[in-house]
């Protein structure tokens, strides 16, 4: 019987090798008696979190993290029943890129959310005003915002102002190159937290949702 660490490590190696078949074999092994959600929580999520940390440390590349995320997203999509939108017990999550058509960062977060079983509202690329309107209409409690350019990142402050006017708490988590390269920027914009890599979003969701899943 393999240990949890061995399984996660093998799964991570398959992802880095972009070996879809091996990753699928490991995740769907018939000899594995764990429930599918346990396999995802114990194999997929730790592997993606570790890859995210390795990217921060400069030990793997963005393309490896991105392609791994796609593989996980595909596998989990096949294993888990699809949810159109959040249901009871989960924080209602919204995801957007602010004023940019280059959406890889948001795409990677979307893959992480899907692979970790978190349903979300996908708002695409929007401006601050539209984003706040969508959050209000959908009752979003946890808003994830990705940016690429500094001026877009600074406009997160406008999103914060709009959220504060809603009269109910909405947690705001930001990510993207400007925040990573300027570590104080997220505080300046009024965000509640910053993701240094896409997979970090899972632990932040747990933190702001009041505990683990």
């Amino acid at each position, binding site marked *: 019987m393999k240990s949890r660490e061995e399984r996660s490590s093998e799964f991570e190696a398959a992802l880095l090798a972009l070996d879809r078949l091996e990753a699928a074999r490991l995740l769907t092994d018939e000899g594995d008696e764990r429930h599918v959600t346990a396999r995802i929580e114990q194999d997929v999520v730790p592997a993606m979190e570790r890859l995210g940390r390795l990217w921060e440390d400069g030990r793997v590349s*963005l393309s490896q993290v*991105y392609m791994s995320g796609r593989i996980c997203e595909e596998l989990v999509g096949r294993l888990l029943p699809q949810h159109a939108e959040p249901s009871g017990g989960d924080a209602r999550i919204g995801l957007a890129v602010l004023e940019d058509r280059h959406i890889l960062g948001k795409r990677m977060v979307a893959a992480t959310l899907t692979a970790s079983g978190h349903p979300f509202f996908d708002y695409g690329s929007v401006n601050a005003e539209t984003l706040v309107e969508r959050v209000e209409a959908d009752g979003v409690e946890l808003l994830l915002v990705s940016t690429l350019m*500094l*001026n877009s990142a*600074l406009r997160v402050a406008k999103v914060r102002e709009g959220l504060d006017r809603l009269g109910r708490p909405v947690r705001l988590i930001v990510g993207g190159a400007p925040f990573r390269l300027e570590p*104080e920027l997220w505080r300046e914009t009024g965000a509640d937290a910053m993701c240094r890599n896409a997979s970090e979003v899972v632990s932040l969701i747990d933190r702001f949702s009041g505990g683990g899943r």
Partner: protein
Amino acid sequence: MVRSSMTSMERVVAALSLKEPDRVPWFPLLTTTGARELGLPIREYFSKGSNVAEAQLRMRKKFGHDCLYAFMHASAEVEAWGGESVYYDDGPPNCGMPPLADPERIMSLQPPRVKDSPSLIKALDAIRLMKERAGDEVPILSVVISPFSLPAMQMGLESYLLLIHERQDLLARLMEVNEEFTVEWGRAQVDAGTTAVVYFDPLSSPTIIPRELYLKTGFQVARRTISRIGGPVAMHFASGRCIPILDDVVQTGVGVLCAGCEEDLGELKRLAKGRIALVGNLNGLEMRRWSPARVEEEVKRAIAVAGPGGGFILSDSHGEIPWQVSDEVIFAMGEAVRRWGEYPLDWRS
């Protein structure tokens, strides 16, 4: 203080020859700041090459730095391919929808001609005007986006990463077409009077792709393209890491490497010494909030680790000082480099 005795061109040439000039040269790479200098909205500023030339000359007179920067914005290249630039009041133009949304179009794709591309002609006008007015006293820098990195804007980064991993046939064809374009565009800049072409290649950084993939892709493209541009070329990864591929970069034929702010400049200097000159690596995003004292501290730190022995030019790490960075910070940078950058750097001992 020792009076500077070299022209900017002499100072930069000495640094690039891996020697100690009279002082460390400094390149505050100013783009949208020029619009503020002329009191123009950013969109209007970039509508004419003459605006860019005028602002670059005025800013150099004001701050006393060692280059003129003809770079306008990256999306100007994508306009040549049928894309669009989206303008903002407080930052550089960004690319709109990628013009090459359907990868299957790659097989029939033809490179645009520089002479038919208004966005590129504006940049060439800026280079010519600067050359006419500044002569050989100061280097003029201009930019090409590498053929390997251009598709991030031509087709979007996500589609491009998939193409790199899954469609080698289309990747090969796209590189062929892009290389023809970049070579013509780089040569046109050299003909217009640029001193050095900065080859922006962020996709080749280990931040984005692993070295093994780089050696099969971006590295091969760089070797083929740089040798054909016909002028001095500097390698820039736009804040991306470069230490893991330093030996490879040296082999692409460039004499200068621009360092990202996430790497240890001292370590990079140790690895690069005697082989390739370095430019960098102040954090432009953080610079927005720096006090003059913090500027001095950062400049002094960079010079202390990368200045000894020459082969170093002080600059930011991204290839562009953000519009939000104040004149006060840029002035402080100049004061600090003049105070701490005079050779020999005796204060270090």
